């Protein structure tokens, strides 16, 4: 093959592979956007979980001061205000247990009987100044369950709906894909703090 013929062949090849970059870019760009979106979604989820965890710590601190369970629940709800955690999906349970295993649990009004973290068999909503019925030295566990954290991107949705994550909130086709974020903290109950004037 002469030099001129080789040049002509290369030129033809170049013309035929012009669209190749476009196709490759299309494939790579879609994958890249999906992966970047998944990273952002995962980061937001971790941030929301940290907010729930910080709220649990704040509520547990209140419980360790001996305030009534209604105020412990309020403290948790207040601590999640303005964060990525969805207030309408937040459930709070405060469970007082003594050394023999007898427990008194209190929940906020949002808890449903089907919620997996709801203490059994009963979990009433406490009155504003209701004493928990526990003694000093008992353990009090504050549990926060955020069950309306919405997952937006397809990759994380697929993971949440898979048997690996086993998230039942993400397997209802007609609803948004939610993820449960749960944290709890246990502290010693010091006895009821007296009411301040």
């Amino acid at each position, binding site marked *: 093959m002469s030099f001129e013929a080789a040049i002509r062949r*290369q030129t033809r090849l170049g013309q035929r592979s012009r669209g190749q970059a476009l196709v490759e870019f299309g494939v790579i760009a879609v994958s890249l956007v999906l992966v970047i979106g998944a990273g952002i979604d995962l980061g937001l989820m971790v941030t929301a979980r940290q907010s729930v965890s910080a709220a649990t710590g704040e509520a547990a601190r209140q419980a360790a001061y001996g305030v009534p369970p209604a105020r412990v629940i309020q403290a948790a709800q207040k601590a999640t205000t303005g964060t990525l955690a969805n207030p309408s999906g937040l459930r709070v349970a405060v469970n007082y247990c003594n050394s023999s295993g007898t427990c008194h649990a209190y929940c906020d009004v949002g808890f449903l009987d089907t919620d997996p973290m709801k203490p059994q068999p009963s979990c009433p909503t406490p009155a504003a100044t209701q004493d928990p019925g526990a003694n000093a030295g008992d353990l009090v566990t504050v549990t926060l369950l955020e069950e309306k954290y919405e997952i937006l991107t397809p990759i994380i949705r697929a993971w949440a709906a898979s048997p690996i994550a086993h998230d039942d909130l993400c397997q209802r086709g007609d609803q948004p894909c939610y993820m449960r974020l749960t944290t709890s903290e246990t502290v010693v109950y010091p006895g009821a703090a007296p009411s301040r004037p």
Partner: protein
Amino acid sequence: MTPALLARRQQAQVIVIFPIAILMLLGMAAMAIDGGRLFLGRQELQKAAEAAALDGALSAALSDPQHPDPASHSGVVEQAVTDSLARNLGVANTICRSVAVDRPIKYPPETLDGTNANGVYVRISCSPQLTAAAMIPGVAGMTLGADAEAVLGSKDSAGKFQPYQFDPTSPYPRVLPPPAA
């Protein structure tokens, strides 16, 4: 050199570029995961340290309501701190290879608003399990740390610090209301 020869010589280029790119991408992903785990572990350690300090301070008060002084009840406080950490480490347990508490636990005297108070200072540290980030010099041997201090006190309605005043007539270390102004 002819263009045909040039094209042939570039054919195997992708075999070299692809593994390098894949290794770099996987390395970056692993480092992002490691960073996230370190962040999460640090937060969980801090939460556990705060609960442990609170439980330690309260345990002294519960064991001797008349003399709620953590420094005089070191054995009780240390046991309470250990128990509390066992209950509250949570996710940090899966991130850390081991968790250690600095001993002896300190009981720093504090003067708050002219009143002496006694507290519990807890410091915990953990050796995190890392993957790719362990290859970075200086990161491999790093430890995560968290510390917290709980002083037996609370704020009164005016926002002023009020050391706990235990009711000597109560079997429990109940906090008395602040004195009337």
